[in-house]
């Protein structure tokens, strides 16, 4: 049995199939926009309220994508930390196969600092990392109903998904 000559091209190697298709890339495929374009950013934290009892901070989630699993090609919504928390719980219920990453710190030790600029910035970064990991996951993109809603719906209704 002849051994494949190491310097032969693949198409003339041993055992050529009669129905081998020629795979040529089109111009669009070479230079066009890739099909996996997904940008998710968590930016622009704003703190509302005047009294400590009614103060809270929310963040803007900006999404730009061409992945068909997402409803819109671009979206801009606002969410607060507790929304992220309920979203994470919903995700855990939706999948047994995927390990959902943790959110940035929620402990009571940080409670008193939660309107401090450094704390908000650290939290923003952590939320962005969390959302990127979750949005980029192929099984969640196609399998989770809560993911696309959380990122793109104007209003997040946690009761729909728990």
């Amino acid at each position, binding site marked *: *049995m002849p*051994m*494949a000559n*190491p310097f*032969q091209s*693949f198409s003339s*190697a*041993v*055992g*050529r*199939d009669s129905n*081998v298709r020629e*795979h*040529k*890339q*089109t111009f669009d*495929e*070479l230079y066009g926009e*890739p*099909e*996996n374009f*997904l940008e998710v950013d968590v930016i622009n934290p704003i703190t509302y309220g005047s009294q400590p009892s009614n103060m809270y901070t929310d963040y803007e989630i900006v999404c730009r994508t061409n*992945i*068909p*699993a997402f409803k819109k090609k671009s979206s801009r919504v606002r969410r607060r930390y507790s929304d992220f928390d309920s979203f994470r719980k919903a995700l855990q219920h939706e999948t047994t196969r995927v390990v959902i990453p943790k959110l940035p710190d929620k402990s009571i030790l940080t409670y008193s600092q939660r309107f401090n600029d450094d704390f908000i910035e650290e939290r923003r970064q952590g939320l962005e990392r969390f959302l*990127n*990991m979750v949005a*980029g*996951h*192929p*099984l969640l*993109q*196609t399998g989770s109903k809560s993911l696309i809603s959380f990122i793109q719906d104007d209003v997040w209704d946690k009761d729909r998904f728990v």
Partner: protein
Amino acid sequence: MFKSPLDIELRLDGEDTRETVEVKSTKGRKEKLSLYKDGETVKGQVTIRMRDNKKVEHTGIKIQLLGTIEITNDGVQADEFLSLAHELASPGELRHPETFPFEFRNVEKSYESYRGINVRLKYYLKVTVSRKSADVIREKELWVYQYQDPRGEEGDSKTANTNTNTITKTTTTTPPPPPPPPSMVKMDVGIENCLHIEFEYSKNRYSLKDVIVGRIYFLLVRLKIKHMELSLIRRETCGSPPNQKSESQTIVRFEIMDGAPVKGETIPIRLFLGGFDLTPTYKDVNKKFSTRTFLSLVLIDEDARRYFKQSEIILYREE
């Protein structure tokens, strides 16, 4: 500590000209062992010298050629599949150095020598000088290779002989038809709506000195791929169900693509097997263990998620 009163030297005939194999020992060092084939005679000489020139009494000297399979499974289990012995001397006294020639004729060596993760198959000579106190023993390991016909399964020589016996003298013998050329292995794999690739390679059966020629064609890429690797994995399975244990070892890992591919891209594969420490595919050796080799394609995305496809390749040793 009592040192043995004897020095035993084991020499094989033609050791200097015989082919050797370099094998990694358990301590990580490399040993050179003499190579023997199935059916080959194993012969040589045993020279016994006394230390301190004192005469030594013994109850017999013998030499054995043993083949064993050792399985490490919370302790070592050794199973002998080959055991030949020759008596070198009957009970007596050794007063001066003596040399004993030995010959094990046309020894059938059905399996290849193998050093794996939990399994070891070895052939070795063992000289035993029996004494009323402790026996004095000397061992010497040999290495055995088994060669296979590239066309078929192992050991087809017997069936070929029976065919010629049944052909009468009046008809002309026609050679067996050439085997069909091996066909390409082609796989369509992926994740629904996220990734779809065509994984193709030349055939599923390779000699240890062969080349794997193939390609990966991307039909759909909705993931952010960072790079792609191709590995060869050896999986050793020992025992029989329900107590079967498998352990894998990555023999080589290559990065074959760096960066994000797009739809329509083709990545070529060319893997020269001769450069690696590969083991032929062993199926159920002495009903004790198997060794299989897998080609593993792994894609890694930007979040370090790994997507993989493993498929078995049959390896054989060609002469």
